[in-house]
């Protein structure tokens, strides 16, 4: 298994949040970012599938349904590599606290559920160091489905795994697909030392737990702007 950024001697640290769609991880990581910034830490938040150059290709692929499990996997790996090499590594070398809304584990879970061999996917991401801390927001499928529907009424095609032809009913497909993702995440949890957060609880309760784990593990002093006293 790869070393974490801390083990590899980087002055910065990487915190990843993972969970199925609707687990509330994005809300939690945004709140964590605000709080860390208020503590004076240098923070950068990187989102899955957000590299400028790759995004338009992914969008076209999804819209015209051009993606197969293999190209779905490779295009997301391309996106990750671009963010990793251009943003994450330089910022971690500069001593930032980097927050990642999804990390390699998302690919490990999704691509395997779509039928790509586990070892192939893992080796492709073999260039990446592991996070120093990974939160896994664990929800029941019903809770996550309700959150997704409350927010925007409609399920997205790929989020529901419709490309896998699990069911013609998008809600049924969503349940099966997200259930399989959840299984993959739980199988990885021990191996990668996920900090599991019970995400069926109110946002504030979870956020307090997240902050506590972060201050227990990291001395925030180390991530302040050098030469600035607060």
């Amino acid at each position: 298994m790869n070393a974490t950024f801390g083990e590899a001697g980087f002055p910065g640290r990487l915190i990843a949040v993972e969970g199925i769609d609707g687990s509330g991880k994005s809300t939690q990581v945004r709140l964590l970012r605000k709080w860390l910034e208020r503590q004076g830490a240098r923070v950068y938040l990187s989102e899955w599938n957000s590299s400028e150059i790759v995004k338009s290709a992914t969008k076209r692929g999804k819209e015209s349904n051009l993606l197969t499990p293999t190209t779905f996997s490779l295009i997301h790996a391309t996106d990750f590599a671009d963010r990793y090499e251009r943003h994450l590594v330089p910022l971690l070398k500069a001593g930032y606290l980097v927050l990642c809304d999804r990390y390699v584990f998302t690919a490990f879970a999704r691509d395997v559920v779509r039928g790509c061999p586990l070892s192939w996917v893992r080796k492709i991401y073999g260039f990446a160091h592991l996070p120093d801390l990974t939160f896994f927001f664990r929800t029941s499928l019903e809770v996550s489905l309700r959150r997704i529907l409350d927010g925007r009424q409609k399920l997205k095609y790929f989020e529901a795994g419709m490309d896998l032809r699990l069911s013609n009913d998008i809600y049924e497909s969503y349940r099966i697909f997200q259930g399989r993702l959840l299984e993959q995440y739980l199988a990885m949890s021990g191996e990668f030392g996920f900090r599991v957060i019970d995400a069926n609880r109110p946002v504030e309760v979870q956020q307090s737990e997240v902050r506590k784990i972060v201050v227990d593990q990291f001395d925030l002093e180390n991530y302040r702007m050098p030469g600035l006293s607060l």
Partner: protein
Amino acid sequence: MSRTAHKSKRTRSKPRRDASKEVSVPLPPPTPKRFYGHGIPGVDPASLAGKLIVVEGADGSGRSTQIARLVSWLEGEGHPIVQVGLKRSTLVSPELEQAKKGNILSRTTLSLFYATDFADQLENVILPALKAGFMVLADRYIYTLMARDLVRGMDLKWLKNLYGIALEPDAVFYLQVSPEILVQRNFMKNQALDYWESGMDLGLSRDMFESFKLYQARIIEKFQLLQKTYRFTIVNGDRSAEEINRELRARIGKILLRGKQD
């Protein structure tokens, strides 16, 4: 009648090709196919009846000329052909083109971007064509991509895993041209060297002419390394187009007759 007699006389004096002998188009015998690694989920290599022929070589190696001649020859012989090449996928080619212009992508990203482009064409063009019994002529394949990545310091084991999706071709011809001749051919074509074909992103030399020669020598080195694993046929590309084409036709002729080169 005298006209007919006259015609037949002409035919005798200058022998025509006997059309009756060209009526039957031999079906190339099937040979077992395999992927280099796990391949594409759900695709059985035994279902791929057509032949996959790859021509590799740097810009200016005469690759395109050779492929054009081969296509025309093979179609004349009655074989259905589909052509593929790098950066031709519907999925990512516009972004790849844009990224290369700005030179903003780092090596792992560029490598994966090209792999996506390759996978898209493999699944949407190459495999369906082979399944339908077409002969696929590929203007470059994974070896060029691997050689470029190796020169940029990527790990061979990582690349072999990545391209475990690729189908092993029935033949791979690598047109090897010495860097000195390559430079001259590039100048004959455009009077200019290409930024990427000169490996300018590597900073080998600020002088483009020098960089081109250094970079192409390194690519040749990597091709020779890859040859040990992938066992492709190295074709001396320093010769004339006619000589090279004669050799390629002879080799492909064997595949048409016996299903494989040797």
